[in-house]
């Protein structure tokens, strides 16, 4: 942690150090965001290996483009822009390929009995509920890429509409309409399950 860490832009100290050639500072930035960024990349491209490639490429690109970062803005907004563009490009290429497959390796459970349909409370419980997990995956995969990106950035990352608009280079109104559409689609996919 550096002196600027408690400020409004907590990553600036690390960015400055990385720009001065401190590779460890860049690694700290990467460690800080890699899990969240991987979640976004995975949500967009679907395939875990593709998502890891996207993540690696985005961090390498960030390393070489770090001098373009504008101090006073948020590092993660700047980085997510690189990441999301990379992920959407990758997904578009992969979606044209006939070999795109549904990834269910993370699901450990069996199909639940109709009477036992309850909402999970933890990631492990979700992974143990094959029907719901696959239903969610299918519903998310069926969303257009920009709608999928918006709902991930809002619901998983908790970003503000304005930040999402900056990342996707669109208006706040567009973010809102995509978010409403995506939420409605997910809500439909969840119908049939009851509160546990």
């Amino acid at each position: 942690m550096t002196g600027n860490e408690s400020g409004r832009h907590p990553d600036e100290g690390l960015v400055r150090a990385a720009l001065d050639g401190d590779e460890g500072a860049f690694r700290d930035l990467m460690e800080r965001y890699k899990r969240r960024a991987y979640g976004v990349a995975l949500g967009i491209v679907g395939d875990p290996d593709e998502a890891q490639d996207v993540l690696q490429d985005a961090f390498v690109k960030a390393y070489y483009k770090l001098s373009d970062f504008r101090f006073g803005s948020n590092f993660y907004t700047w980085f997510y822009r690189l990441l999301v563009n990379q992920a959407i490009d990758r997904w578009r290429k992969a979606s044209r390929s006939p070999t795109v497959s549904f990834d269910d390796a993370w699901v450990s459970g069996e199909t639940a009995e109709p009477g036992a349909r309850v909402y999970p409370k933890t990631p492990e419980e979700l992974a143990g509920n094959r029907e719901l997990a696959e239903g969610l995956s299918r519903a998310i995969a069926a969303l257009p890429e920009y709608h999928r990106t918006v709902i991930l950035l809002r619901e998983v990352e908790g970003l503000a509409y304005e930040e999402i608009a900056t990342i996707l280079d669109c208006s706040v109104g567009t973010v809102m309409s995509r978010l409403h559409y995506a939420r409605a689609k997910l809500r439909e996919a969840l119908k049939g399950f009851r509160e546990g």
Partner: protein
Amino acid sequence: MECREARQKIHDLIDGRLPPRVAAEVRDHLGVCGPCGAEEAELRRAGDMLRLWSAARVEAREPELSALWTRVRAGIEERREPWYASYLRRWFWVPAAAVLVVLALLFYPSDGLEVPFRPKSFDVTVESIESESATVALVDKGEELPRVIWIIENGKT
């Protein structure tokens, strides 16, 4: 508040974008209107499930994420330019300037009267012999210069 108005504001309520007074009005409506209340609960649940879905998938790849720096470091090295690349970029103007100087010396009039390397025009005679696949042209530029033979075959010289 009417159902239509309340439903339009549900997303803003979930995302905390309503002023406190309006948020309270919407919440009052959701508390007494079953269908609107159910819609809000389902939309919130969609967000909850998406967060769990994302967390479960990220957790499943934790070992690979632990080794991410090795991959990123390798990617950085792969794209890194050789040590002399920046020198080449910095000093590229030197050979470029040298070429310009040589060209200027070649074409600049040395005594003010004659350009040292000016091409001359000639009166030439051309004999042409054509076959089915090629045209052969003999160009005679006079006694001082050698004869030139052009062969044009399939449209190429």
